[in-house]
């Protein structure tokens, strides 16, 4: 159907011509979903655009063909391609917010696509509504009359899918179609994609960095690294019996739902992906590979390990026989028995509210409408004990970052009390003395912006030590060296500007800065979500090691329940600014769940194509925090909605035996009786190290 044959694509850059994709071949058949997995710089998006024959001007196709219906697409000009785009091969882009015309109604945009396909305007209108219903948008008529800014990101992505399928193409290219969407929204879209493919017998090229998503959607998976195909096999093989050290490393470095650091440690891949401009000769993965030998200085070809299973590694036979173990050795982390004694509380937050007033427009003033408030955080009570990690998990808009900012003093809380080591914390930073500031430090999500661009890493750390560490000037240099060593970076890094460091290195320097003052509590706001998958594990391991070494406390914030469950001792689930569930990490994955936790768990794609999962999908979108629902904030979407009581009364806090808490009107026993564990892996994930 669609065949890529020996494709090599390069970009013209100021540093010369750089290969982005090197000698990639693959074929996709009708009804097949072909996954392309890779980290940033792996060339996956370039490959997707090449299939569309829609590469940017700096790109050069150096070799290869893209065969479709017996024609080489790369030889066609734009006019000829216009007959193919949409009609035969359609594209679903990554960013739904930037991919729709903001000044046209959804219906008009869809009709435009349809009319281009020789359908009359009246027929087009009817078909547009059908399509919107096809992608399971509630109330298609209303959506068709809306402008893009009036509908949510998930709905926009559905509209884009509707556009892509509107002319029944035989090939669909999807470039990270669910990246940036919330887990519960993503689950619905993935269901839809799976359904459409099955019904229409379309061939799909699915590009993603997310191993779970690909496991859920794809039949066949190709792993790209530094522009080259490392392994190419049916999904069950790639995930079940990977033969390439990189594939194995990738799979080992992601925490699975239900794993916890007390039982298992992540095996990080050493180093970082090479920059496209200086790829190693020979095997591109060699510098990071635990199995590298002399022979790896020669570039390996793509070996056929079994029928339909290709691998680019000299040592694949040994890996298959088990005589070479590519799994990185797991690190041992001291004695981490079960938690028995309860250490003292480092931080307590009681009924914390953060409301932001909304500016009133002139019309509001004239109509005397009352000032509205965004209720970002609503009566949150929680505490963190010494040496423990509390994981805060929630989707976008849940208020998790606002809560962290209120604790840090970057945002002033509207009500409630926060105490650090039993001393009340002033609302804003201005009221906090140096002791308080050093007791509370933070790691930020945006790795690119976390360090001052004009200061070297060494100067940044020295400054922090002088400001907060109270170090006498003569001790600063040695303290800086100790710090950089404690985050496992070589001392050369100290002379670099942040722009000269990779994302992982930058985040380590940011961690070093945050621990310089030996804080009692470290707040980490999505510390790994902007890093490449293979680098994430090393940073998570580092955070964990530091926590153990220093007996520090951690508030770990993430949207990813698998990561939070892995890192934390206690998990807090937050929805629309309210705490829904608090549970020891071991228990959050088992019933009784809060119905929201249950839905969240069943929405996370398992990194296991053969795993089983309950299918609980939430209706609609998260309500606006301007207008939080009465009673239980989750009642508008709750699959276990009871009735009036959920609408009129706030739910009670029900305590579990282990000290957990679930805020729900449904009694715990009833939840326990009606809920099942939402997911089951096909193999045991808790194998001891």
């Amino acid at each position, binding site marked *: 159907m669609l065949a890529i044959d020996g494709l090599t694509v390069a970009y013209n850059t100021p540093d010369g011509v750089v290969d982005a994709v090197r000698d990639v071949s693959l074929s996709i058949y009708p009804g097949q979903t072909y996954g392309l997995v890779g980290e940033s*710089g792996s060339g996956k998006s370039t490959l997707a655009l090449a299939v569309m024959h829609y590469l940017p001007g700096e790109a050069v196709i150096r070799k290869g063909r893209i065969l479709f219906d017996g024609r080489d697409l790369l030889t066609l000009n734009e006019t000829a391609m216009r007959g193919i785009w949409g009609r035969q091969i359609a594209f679903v882009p990554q960013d739904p917010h930037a991919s729709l015309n903001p000044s046209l109604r959804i219906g008009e945009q869809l009709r435009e696509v349809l009319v281009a396909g020789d359908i009359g305007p009246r027929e087009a209108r009817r078909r547009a509504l059908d399509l919107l219903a096809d992608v399971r948008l509630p109330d298609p008529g209303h959506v068709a009359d809306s402008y893009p800014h009036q509908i949510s990101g998930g709905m926009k992505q559905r509209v884009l899918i509707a556009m892509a399928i509107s002319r029944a193409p035989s090939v669909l290219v999807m470039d990270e179609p669910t990246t940036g969407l919330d887990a519960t929204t993503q689950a619905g879209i993935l269901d839809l994609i799976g359904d459409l493919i099955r019904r229409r017998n379309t061939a799909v090229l699915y590009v993603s960095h997310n191993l779970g998503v690909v496991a859920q959607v794809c039949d066949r998976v190709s792993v790209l690294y530094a522009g080259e195909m490392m392994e190419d096999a049916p999904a069950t093989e790639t995930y079940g019996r990977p033969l390439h050290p990189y594939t194995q490393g990738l799979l080992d470095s992601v925490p699975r739902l239900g794993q916890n650091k007390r039982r298992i440690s992540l095996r990080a*891949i050493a*180093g970082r992906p090479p920059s496209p401009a200086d790829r190693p000769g020979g095997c591109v993965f060699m510098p990071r590979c635990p199995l590298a030998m002399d022979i790896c200085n020669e570039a390996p070809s793509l070996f056929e390990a079994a029928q339909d299973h290709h691998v680019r590694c000299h040592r694949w036979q040994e890996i298959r026989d088990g005589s070479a173990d590519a799994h990185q050795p797991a690190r041992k982390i001291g004695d981490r028995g079960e938690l028995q004694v309860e250490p003292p509380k480092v931080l307590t937050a009681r009924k914390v509210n953060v409301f932001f007033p909304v500016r009133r427009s002139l019309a509001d003033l004239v109509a005397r409408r009352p000032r509205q408030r965004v209720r970002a955080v609503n009566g949150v009570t929680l505490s963190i004990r010494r040496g423990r990690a509390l994981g805060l998990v929630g989707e976008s808009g849940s208020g998790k970052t606002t809560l962290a900012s209120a604790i*840090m003093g970057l945002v002033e809380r509207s009500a409630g009390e926060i105490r650090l080591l039993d001393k009340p914390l002033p609302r804003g*930073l201005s009221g906090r003395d140096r002791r308080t*500031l050093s007791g509370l430090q933070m790691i930020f999500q945006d790795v690119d912006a976390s360090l*001052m661009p004009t200061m070297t890493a060494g100067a940044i750390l020295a*400054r922090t030590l002088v400001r907060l560490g109270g170090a006498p000037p003569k001790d600063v240099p040695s303290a800086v060296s100790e710090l950089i060593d404690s985050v496992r970076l070589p001392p050369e890094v100290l002379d670099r500007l942040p722009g*000269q460091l990779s994302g992982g290195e930058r985040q380590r320097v940011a961690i070093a800065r945050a621990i310089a003052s030996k804080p009692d509590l470290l707040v980490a706001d999505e510390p790994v979500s902007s890093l490449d998958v293979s680098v994430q594990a090393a940073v998570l391991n580092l955070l964990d090691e530091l926590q153990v070494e220093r007996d520090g406390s951690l508030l770990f914030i993430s949207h990813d329940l698998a990561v939070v469950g892995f890192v934390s001792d206690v998990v807090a689930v937050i929805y629309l600014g309210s705490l829904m569930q608090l549970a020891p990490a071991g228990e959050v994955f088992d019933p009784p769940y809060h119905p929201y936790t249950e839905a969240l768990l069943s929405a996370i794609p398992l990194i296991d194509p053969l795993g089983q999962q309950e299918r609980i999908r939430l209706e609609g979108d998260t309500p606006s925090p301007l207008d939080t629902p009465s009673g239980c904030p989750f009642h508008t979407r709750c699959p276990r909605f009871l009735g009036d009581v959920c609408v009129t009364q706030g739910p009670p806090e029900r305590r579990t035996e282990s000290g957990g808490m679930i805020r729900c009107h449904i009694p715990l026993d009833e939840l326990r009786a009606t809920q099942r564990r939402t997911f089951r892996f096909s193999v045991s994930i808790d194998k001891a190290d």
Partner: protein
Amino acid sequence: MDHALTISPMTAPRVGRRRLFRALAILFNRRASAIGALITLAFVFVALLGPWLAPYGLNQQLPASSLQPPSPDHWFGTDQLGRDVFSRVLFGASDILIMAGLGTLLAVLLGTSVGLFSAYKGGVWDEVIMRLFDSLLSLPMMLLALLLLGSLSSSNQSVMIVLVVVYTPIVARVVRSVVLSVKDLAYVHAARLQGESLRWILVRAILPATFPALAVESALRFSYAIFLIASLGFLGIGFQPPSANWGMMVSNARELATSAPWALYYPAAAIAVVVIGVNLFADGLKRISQAPQEFSR
């Protein structure tokens, strides 16, 4: 442990020099920017050394040779009073460019301070300052300049005041927009979390981020300042007769357009060339500031 983090042995000073080379490479890679940079350089040179380069005095009258066409003795010819046009253009360059440069510098300093403060503080301060600037900017620039000069004495200081009043709001706005995009970045939060003073945050953390935009804006303001001074000179305001304002030279030579066009065209060309040159240079600076950073991963 993953000590295998690969870091090439490249030291910081070498990187600074490499950056400069990279910037120059971007500037000189494009013909237009290169020409702009050279023109700017040449005029700055002339402005600083003009009085020494000039073959004749500023107001040295050569009675025997009024309205001479260009010749080896008088490259740009002479005007109706028998003054050497070439020399007057050179003298004019130092008057105009130094005045424009100083005015721009003051406006940039003031605009940057106000923009930084206003954007970082936000709230009522920002609101009041920006609305004030908006109302200033709502007047046509020339009208504002004429109004101000009408109420001030006609002197070099007055022209400077005009430049500052007219350009400060523009610079402040540019700086403000950069600051707004930077002040909520993680590294600024980190600075606040280690108790840095407001001054330290503004000067050390935020100000450097405005430099690229500021460089472009300063170059643009400089070229418009030259333009504005020349225009005022043409209208006979600002500089007083003994000095050689190009605009004034053009205005004085208006009636000679057919009989002695050189007296009109050379000063006019000087205005055009320097304004275009500085503009092209500003465009080149913009390219440098927008060039992708190394190690963008």
